[in-house]
């Protein structure tokens, strides 16, 4: 599983305030960076929405006649096979669920962007908004990790060393991990009380 370097948790991007609100302290540059990453996720999801989903009847019933297994590994990670050794069952599952799953992930990415658009120096989140922001951050990290070929064999540490201090994609990924870790902790503070 992924983890977040302990040192980075000294600072908090998202925190639960005394009044119970979840507040993210991100400056204008950080907000713009996050917005641009979420925008890339939204574009990927919107583009993956092929002809079948535009058919109004198919949309109405939420079933696609031909839900193809995504060729793009990032999309395959967002829409994985539900059956490992039964291709027919995996295809059936995809036909019945992928359109709704894509719609949910797309609306979460769009909503997360809208939250940043209305934010000032503070990003204030309701419980529902915090949860969709968590999902959108996670989906962005899944896509970025696929693009970085981040596997259990290739660790983030190796990628960060290779990038040095260039502030490349691996550094962006690490930053997103830190954002998500602070947000999940802020959300869980309420659940565990």
């Amino acid at each position, binding site marked *: *599983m992924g983890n977040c370097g302990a040192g980075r948790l000294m600072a908090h991007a998202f925190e639960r305030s005394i009044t119970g609100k979840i507040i993210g302290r991100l400056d204008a540059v950080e907000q713009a960076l996050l917005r641009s990453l979420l925008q890339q996720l939204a574009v990927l999801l919107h583009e993956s929405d092929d002809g079948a989903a535009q058919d109004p009847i198919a949309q109405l019933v939420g079933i696609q006649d031909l839900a193809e297994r995504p060729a793009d590994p990032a999309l395959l990670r967002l829409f994985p096979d539900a059956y*490992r050794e039964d291709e027919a069952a995996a295809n059936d599952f995809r036909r019945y669920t992928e359109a709704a799953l894509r719609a949910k992930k797309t609306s979460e990415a769009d909503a997360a962007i809208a939250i940043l658009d209305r934010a000032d120096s503070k990003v204030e989140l309701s419980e529902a908004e915090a949860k969709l922001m968590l999902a959108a951050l996670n989906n962005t990290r899944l896509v970025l990790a696929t693009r970085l070929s981040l596997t259990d064999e290739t660790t983030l540490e190796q990628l960060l060393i290779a990038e040095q201090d260039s502030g490349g994609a691996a550094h962006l990924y690490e930053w997103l991990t830190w954002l*998500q*870790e602070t947000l999940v902790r802020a959300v869980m503070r309420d659940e565990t009380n």
Partner: protein
Amino acid sequence: MSSTDTLELTEVELDLAKPFACVVWNDPVNLMSYVTHVFMTYFNYSKSKAEQLMLQVHHEGRAFVSHGDREKIERDVAAMHEFGLWATVEQGG
């Protein structure tokens, strides 16, 4: 009916009686805290049970997180995919 037929029938019956399971697989992206949060909120598991399952995924590579009939398990797997976890439907377990 020959004895072979009887044996085959019994095997089919046993197969149908097997419950399905939602299996969550380890991956390098999903955070330990996030996976725990997902198990607590979706399955309504206690924090200790959620953490125990999360650690099983982390150390053993996978964990059977819920059991039931095929319909329920497909719903659970679809929900795990919504959260971005890597989950599959497995028979038995």
